[in-house]
């Protein structure tokens, strides 16, 4: 995104000494007001996450009280222990890991070759493919869900890891190709030409010269594919009808205690277990999030 609009205001050379003297006091007062709004905003925005963690650490007797407890008295890890040991958590975690890894690896491999082809070779229909890739990104989820379900049902892929992996690859591929292509375009053609002059063949140029240069692209694409696949719910919910094949999002939604009924302490502990890796991940990569994803779809 480039913001190169020419402003309509006149550009007058500023004497900053006189310019800052006048409004300084006013700005300080603004600073105080801004801080108050910022604190209020942060409290509201963080509250749902806080409430999730707060509830997760409460003993069962402390969850449903007429007056909510804003700090867990005698915090306990029981909810977490129960969520892990008394449900199918470990099986479902394994399913999630298999499906997510499978989807990320296949999507990465396909998007590498597709984007290399789209950015480096000029061929008939290239433009059509690019427009198609953009358009497909915007499709409503059900537009792919219905036909995929029918096709997979015919060829026996419903309820299998491979079926779900393929569905996820289809979901993340367009965006992955789009992002990766951006990284390819940023590499000057001269680099390849120099390698060619030194006697490298096309394959060597691709493997030895280009791929090391697009590692950042590979990383952004994997992050995007990982988050999308880890969080995906409705495809998995539709395809995986057997509890032993659930991925973690379905496990989380269908969470209930052995005694039956909704156990919010346990459910919040389960939410923490499921959400924590992603949230920590976001905090680590936050600086790259805005630049890397501004053209894309890291959103529910």
């Amino acid at each position, binding site marked *: 995104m*480039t*913001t190169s*609009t020419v*402003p309509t*205001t*006149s550009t*007058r050379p500023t004497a900053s000494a006189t*310019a800052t003297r006048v409004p300084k006091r006013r700005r300080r007062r*603004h600073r105080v007001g*801004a*801080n108050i709004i*910022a*604190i209020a*905003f*942060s409290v509201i*925005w*963080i509250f*749902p*996450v806080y*409430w*999730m963690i707060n509830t997760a650490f409460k003993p069962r007797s402390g969850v449903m009280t*007429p007056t*909510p407890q804003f700090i867990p008295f005698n915090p306990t890890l029981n909810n977490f222990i129960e969520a892990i040991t008394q449900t199918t958590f470990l099986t479902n975690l394994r399913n999630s890991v298999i499906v997510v890894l499978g989807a990320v690896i296949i999507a990465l491999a396909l998007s590498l070759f597709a984007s290399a082809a789209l950015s480096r070779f000029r061929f008939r229909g290239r433009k059509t493919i690019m427009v*198609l890739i*953009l*358009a*497909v990104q*915007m*499709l*409503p*989820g*059900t*537009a*792919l869900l*219905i*036909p995929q*379900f*029918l096709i997979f049902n015919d060829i026996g892929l419903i309820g299998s890891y491979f079926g779900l992996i393929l569905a996820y690859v*289809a979901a993340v591929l*367009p965006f992955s190709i789009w992002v990766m292509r951006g990284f390819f375009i940023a590499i000057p053609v001269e680099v390849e030409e120099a390698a060619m002059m030194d006697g490298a063949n096309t394959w060597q140029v691709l493997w030895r010269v280009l791929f090391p240069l697009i590692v950042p692209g590979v990383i952004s694409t994997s992050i995007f594919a990982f988050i999308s696949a*880890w*969080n995906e*719910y*409705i495809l998995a919910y539709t395809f995986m009808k057997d509890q032993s094949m659930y991925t973690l*999002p379905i496990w*989380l*939604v269908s969470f209930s205690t052995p005694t039956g009924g909704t156990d919010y302490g346990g459910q*919040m502990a389960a*939410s923490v277990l*499921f*959400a924590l890796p*992603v*949230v920590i991940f*976001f*905090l680590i990569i936050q600086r790259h*999030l*805005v630049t890397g994803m*501004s053209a894309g779809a890291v*959103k*529910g």
Partner: protein
Amino acid sequence: MIALIVAPIIFLLFTSFTNYNQRTLFTGVYSFVGVDQYAKIFVDPQFWWSLIITVIFTVALVVGSLVIGIAVSELLTRLGKVMRYIVTVALIFAWGMPNVASSQVWNWLFQPGYGVINWLLTQLHVFGDLTNLSWSNNTVLALVCIWMLVVWQAVPFIALTTYAAQTQVDQAYIEAARLDGASEPRIYFSVVLNFLKPTILLITVLSIIWDFNVFNQIWLVTQGGPNNTTATLGIWTYLTAFTNFKIGAGAAISVVTTVLLLIFTGFYIRSLLRSGEDL
């Protein structure tokens, strides 16, 4: 590899002209019914209700998240380093939460009986005793509840993207306007927003597409209820195809939704092209 996506779409179109249903899943038998499914959709009041709800809900989401997001971005420019860091972390927590998890948290926050939101509202002593208020059983309240959930998660992306663009605005223009005696709001609306226009346009188009397609949050909070009144087009498609197993009809609704969205997509591609992307 495009076939992984294009072939299903063609198959979707094909299915929308058949009476594919639950029995077909086992026997593979279906018959061609032409435009029957479409004819049925357009006389179905539920379709028009879903369309209207989807449009109203999308507009409310886009306007809400953009106004709050852009305001937060402006707020960020007026903060010191520490406060800015705190707000950013709060934003990233909301952004990073998988929406399946945040929907569960929302169900608990708004739970009738012991939910903390009802408790807080009751403490205000304005609306009376709301302890047992059930948000998901009332169409308007359910939509308000889901609206808050989606906006909560949409604001971080909008605020941080806008803020990134806002830091690129040359301070000299703002100083110049200030010297010319422009008031602070005037500077913001005439100078700063002018710079942000391309960014905001892009975010708006993306938000329209995303918000139109909101699914998980509605599904997990109300499942389209009460009485399908909160069923947006996406939810209604899913209910038709996978709960009532009228797959042919579901496919037809999906095609109609896709056509509606493609109108926006064309707009998005055009705006990308204009911002200098070389296809």
